[in-house]
């Protein structure tokens, strides 16, 4: 009888798999990724034969079936919660913590890339005579330890920041120290690896004081709040987790800034610093509202700045701090380590000369500091 029920259930799901409409190529709103395309659609017989011989066809079919299995999201969540409530939480790619907070897996503090990345930054800074700050942002495992679950692996973000500090004469802010002094405040998102706007503001203030500049007053901002599910949520399958609140800080001064994305004839110019189209209900990636998401080069101009230009080398962490920097500086030249590899773009040293840059701020998540980031472009 059990066998019959089991076979009937499998058979029913298989019928649904073939009968239900597919969302091939569409963005799944929970996982924020494109679902697999139909492996046979719009392909000629010869292309299909080539794929069959190369073994690609079976992989494509597998991916398609995986992505379009009926009630897929439900089964993903069932599995995710089951693993976490049966003692395997600490070993998952995303760890479920207290107070609705999610954590990434620990990073490797012995990674060879720490030294490689810092050496490259030191060389660039030295060659161009730049006063430099390297802000390595530790994860919430270092800055919101009170939310770690009772059983968890050891985290080494503090060691990673210390390793960076040891290898450079540049100023390396103690972000964990700053954030831990304000424990309980909303400085890191709970479902995402990024800091909040408030967290970015704390580090901005510290960097401005280091450079002898007056930071803008926080009281001058109006705060708008939007429901937001971050990168950890998408990876974890823990669909019952409460959303974060993405904060968009606005002010007349921010509205007067001009944002230029791209270089040369490809430059697109915008008013202000927010792509408000990304904040609409139903849009999954609201973080993309900051500075029109991630681009190889972004230049923010402030007609009422301090007359100086700063270079900001960043991964995704720079997008929320750059607008704040642009309220102090006349120009922020922001370059992204991951995309700055086109020959159409000027060398970073050419940008230093062109804009008379004297100060360099590098903002990286701890996960980037230990990774093979595309720092080769920094020359």
């Amino acid at each position, binding site marked *: 009888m059990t066998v019959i029920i089991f076979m009937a259930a499998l058979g029913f799901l298989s019928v649904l798999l073939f009968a239900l409409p597919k969302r091939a190529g569409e963005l799944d709103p929970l996982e924020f990724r494109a679902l*697999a395309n139909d492996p046979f659609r719009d392909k000629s017989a010869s292309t299909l034969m080539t794929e069959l011989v190369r073994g690609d066809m079976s992989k494509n079919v597998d991916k398609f079936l995986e992505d379009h299995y009926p009630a897929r999201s439900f089964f993903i969540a069932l599995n995710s919660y089951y693993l976490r409530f049966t003692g395997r939480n600490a070993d998952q790619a995303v760890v479920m913590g207290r107070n609705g907070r999610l954590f990434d897996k620990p990073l490797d503090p012995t990674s060879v890339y720490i030294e490689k990345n810092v050496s490259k930054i030191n060389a660039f800074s030295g060659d161009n005579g730049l006063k430099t700050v390297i802000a390595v942002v530790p994860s919430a495992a270092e800055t919101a330890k009170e939310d770690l679950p009772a059983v968890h692996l050891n985290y080494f973000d503090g060691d990673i920041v210390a390793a960076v500090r040891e290898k450079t004469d540049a100023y390396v802010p103690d972000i964990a120290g700053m954030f831990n002094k304000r424990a309980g405040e909303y400085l890191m998102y709970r479902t995402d690896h990024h800091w909040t706007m408030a967290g970015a503001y704390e580090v901005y203030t510290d960097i401005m004081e280091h450079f002898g500049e007056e930071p803008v007053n926080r009281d001058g901002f109006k705060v708008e709040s939007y429901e937001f599910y971050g990168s950890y949520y998408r990876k974890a399958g823990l669909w019952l987790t409460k959303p974060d609140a993405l904060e968009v800080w606005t002010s007349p001064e921010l509205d007067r800034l001009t944002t230029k994305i791209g270089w040369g004839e490809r430059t697109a110019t915008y008013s202000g610093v927010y792509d408000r189209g990304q904040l609409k209900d139903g849009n999954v990636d609201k973080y993309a509202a900051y500075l029109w998401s991630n681009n190889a080069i972004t230049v923010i101009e402030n007609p009422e700045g301090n007359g100086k230009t700063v270079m900001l080398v960043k991964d995704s962490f720079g997008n929320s701090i750059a607008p704040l920097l642009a309220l102090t500086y006349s120009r922020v030249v922001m370059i992204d380590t991951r995309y700055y590899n086109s020959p*159409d773009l000027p060398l970073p040293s050419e940008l230093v000369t062109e804009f008379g840059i004297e100060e360099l701020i590098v903002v990286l998540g701890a996960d980037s500091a230990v990774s093979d980031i595309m720092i080769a472009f920094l020359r």
Partner: protein
Amino acid sequence: MKKTLRSIAVIMLAALMAFAFAACGEKKNPVKEHDMIAFAKDILTNCSFQDEFLAEIEDRNFALTLTKIDADLVADKDGVKQIAYYSSAAYPEMIICVEAADEAAAEKVMEKLSAVVERYIKDYTEYGPDQVEKLNTAVKRTSGRYVVLAVTNDNTAAAKYIDSAL
């Protein structure tokens, strides 16, 4: 009757083995000679890209640095490393064509190019998921000592073009 059937079966098996050995002894088709720098330009001209500004990294040593390919693995012609790298500042589209030093080097070059794609997949998964499919279906081909990686706006058509030309 039984004896006849047995004889027929033996003859057929012997014929099958003879064909199998003949296939083993068959000569491989010789690999065509290519100019990979020109080939990369052909791919740019004949395949479809979302970025109309895909540009060549003319500094070939820098191209090796970006792809993390050891210079010794790449063939040299008149002092010019045989690697062509076209990249985009806006999308994960690229063309990388390499003439490796030999077939063994070609395998190592392909490993490095696969790592380039994996790196892009990791970044674009977070911030540009609509582009990840292009990377997942990237055209990766090795023929003798020639290695090709192409991430285009229509990888199916690109694969057809590259397979016919390579």
